[in-house]
């Protein structure tokens, strides 16, 4: 639902860096998106094409790295990946583990420009 906003924010970051460095064309953009961010991959890819038309990033490839949900289990004293749909619960000992280590990311990592 908010993918077009996410795409426009990503584009903002790309355009800012491009204009700072005098870059005229961007061929690919690498982003990291957490499992809890509610971003739908296909919707973001579609939004990216729409958002970037007639910009420095027109026709660029958006590469989405999906970051899995990881929580910290106090009982196991370690990082664990909960099973989807079971809440923030340690998959090994069943302890509710509300401390989120990763899975909330929405990060612009880097971009590629023709050399």
């Amino acid at each position: 639902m908010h993918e077009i906003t996410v795409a426009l924010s990503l584009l903002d970051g790309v355009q800012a860096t491009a204009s700072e460095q005098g870059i005229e064309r961007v061929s690919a953009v690498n982003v990291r998106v957490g499992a809890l961010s509610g971003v739908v991959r296909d919707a973001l890819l579609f939004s990216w094409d729409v958002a970037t038309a007639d910009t420095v990033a027109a026709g660029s490839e958006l590469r989405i790295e999906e970051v899995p949900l990881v929580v910290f289990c106090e009982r196991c004293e370690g990082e664990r990946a909960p099973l989807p749909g079971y809440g923030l619960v340690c998959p090994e000992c069943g302890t509710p583990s509300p401390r989120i280590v990763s899975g909330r990311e929405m990060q612009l990592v880097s971009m590629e420009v023709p050399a």
Partner: protein
Amino acid sequence: MKVRVVEIASNLMLKNDALAAKLRARFVESGTLVVNMLSSPGSGKTTLLEETLRRLSGTYRVAALVGDQATENDALRLARSGAPVRQITTAAECRLDAGMISKALAQLQGEHFDALFIENVGNLICPAEYDLGEDLRVVLLSVTEGEDKPLKYPLAFNTSQVVLITKVDIAAAVGFDRVAAGESIERVNPGVRVVEVSTRTGAGMEEWIALLDSRIGAKALAPAR
């Protein structure tokens, strides 16, 4: 084609988080308790808020900001409580962000409030990501919804300090399973404060108002002032 990699490394939430931090500092300064209310569409946010404003406005200066993608209907409803209310129409956006709150506050013309309630856009996904500078994030779960909603939208429930179970007057009629709902909540936010309310019968409203009352008092006395 040879390519060159340009590092950017920026977090999309940075802009919102920076604005939210400014709002938070401003609310500390003014001693205003800020409550951000999240829920699915139709869970009873507006009705609950109308009643909440009505009950608090005898004692405190309260105001509300209400976000919707379209219409000013909710602001008109909330204004019946007598409290100042501003509608934020978000159009394509599925949530409020800190920038929208700053703009809407400007319309309240620097008046002092003891408490500011923000009714977010009815949606459990996007609003969970956006810090609005609030002290208290409250998520509503009505008895007509699935008991497993916290499992479907873990972030909204995980980041809230209070869960309000609403419309409890019809819990039996719709076969609401309290135990199952409680278990779902515990799986994403163990120990979170849960209050069952009904605006129709008034059940639980005293507990909810008492909770706000103590938080408003604590904020007004906060040492940062």
